[in-house]
């Protein structure tokens, strides 16, 4: 599954590369302004660490293509969460992404009867389309940039997830609005996600408490600082479907450094609340993104 999607994305990139050589080299121009590609949301699209945004990945303008690779690591008291993947922005209009999440239960896996170091994986294939509005240029209007997105999520260990009363596959749909307020140097972001995912989908989809789709909210506010730095906070509500493991909302506070259009780094404190009955799962989030 993963290999197939990476192959498809690489193929598409090569095709675009061939197109670029033919048309003109400006197709990979990185023509957008620094910071306007955002960083990578844990599930792969352009956003903050936790919250989806209406921004399109990469620094390509509407005449060009951008892409990036990301890696994220979250250290929690009882678990570690790693994520990485690739995202592509087409003409500042469409975003395609593939992300893999790896959730290592460490010593807690043994206590849960799963075995020490038991690892859950999840593959997320995402697509986002920018609908209307402009986050950056339309400073004379409060109308935000609005996009809709879809994430197809496939978990590992179907048997385990079924035993929990959850499905191993699910789809998230979201609408996101993003606005940059240049005068005060503030970026605001809000999204509504319709989802059945437990812990982003790592613990499957739906469950005994209610299997249906549920609207959840993602909010973030970011303050731009000199030296290409930004600080911000995010909040994300999550469903509570599993009877054995109540799920909490998540929040984080971060600092991001847009070193260049080719590299950005994120350092955060993140609180994911209760995961698999282990309370107070908070810790350090580090993320890096390379691209154009």
């Amino acid at each position, binding site marked *: 599954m993963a290999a197939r999607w990476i192959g498809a994305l690489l193929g598409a990139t090569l095709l675009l590369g061939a197109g670029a050589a033919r048309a003109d080299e400006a197709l990979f121009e990185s023509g957008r302004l620094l910071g306007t590609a955002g960083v990578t949301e844990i599930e792969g699209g352009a956003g903050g660490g936790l919250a989806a945004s209406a921004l399109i990945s990469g620094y390509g303008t509407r005449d060009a293509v951008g892409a990036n690779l990301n890696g994220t690591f979250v250290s929690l008291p009882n678990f570690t969460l790693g994520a990485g993947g690739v995202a592509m922005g087409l003409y500042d209009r469409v975003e395609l992404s593939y992300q893999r999440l790896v959730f290592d239960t460490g010593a807690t896996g043994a206590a849960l009867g799963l075995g020490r170091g038991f690892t859950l994986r999840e593959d997320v294939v995402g697509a986002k389309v920018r609908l209307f509005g402009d986050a950056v*240029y339309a400073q004379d209007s409060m109308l935000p940039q609005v996009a809709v997105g879809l994430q197809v999520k496939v978990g590992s260990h179907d048997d385990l997830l079924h035993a929990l009363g959850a499905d191993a596959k699910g789809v998230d749909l979201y609408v996101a609005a993003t606005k940059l307020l240049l005068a005060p140097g503030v970026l605001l972001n809000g999204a509504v996600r319709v989802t059945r995912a437990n812990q982003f989908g790592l613990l499957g989809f739906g469950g005994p408490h209610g299997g249906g789709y549920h609207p959840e909210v993602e909010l973030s506010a970011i303050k731009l600082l000199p030296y290409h730095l930004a600080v911000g906070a995010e909040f994300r509500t999550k469903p509570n479907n599993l009877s054995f493991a109540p799920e909490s909302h998540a929040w984080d506070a971060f600092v991001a450094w847009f070193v260049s259009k080719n590299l950005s780094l994120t350092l955060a404190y993140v609180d994911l609340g209760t995961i698999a009955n282990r309370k107070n799962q908070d810790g350090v989030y580090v993320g890096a993104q390379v691209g154009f």
Partner: protein
Amino acid sequence: MHPAPHRPRFRLPSSRRPCAAAPDASAAVSRRHAPAWLGLLCGLLLLPALHPARAGTLYDQLGGQEGITRIVAGMYRHVLSDGRVSAKFENIDTDFIQRQLVQQLCELTGGPCHYRGPSMHGGHSGLGITDRDFNAVVEDLQDGMDDAGTPFMARGRLLALLAPMHGQIVSR
């Protein structure tokens, strides 16, 4: 508290800067009796976009005519050595363009100027300017502000004033 009424020739479409234009409007009736509630209302309306250095115009924050001239000169220095856009500025009288831009920024930021040159749209139509070109010049402007030591908050305010010109400058 509201933008100070010491800018007698400050002219901007009142739809864009209603509060900034208010002192002018009241001055037409009576220079000495500007309604206090108008200032209060405008102060409240401006609160959400709190600029730390709200006292004084953006023109003042940029260093007045001298500061704006330095920013524009720095911007053109960077533009002319910027391989992405320098070709677009060949055969253009950059001294003339610089003077025009200084006048325009002076007026736009609340300075005592009255710009009489062509509109942004008129000056750029048919030049085939892309998003990338526009953003390259924005980056050159940022470099120019770096060189001029423009305060961070003033940069954001200036960029916010200029960003909507994107639609008039870039060819659709």
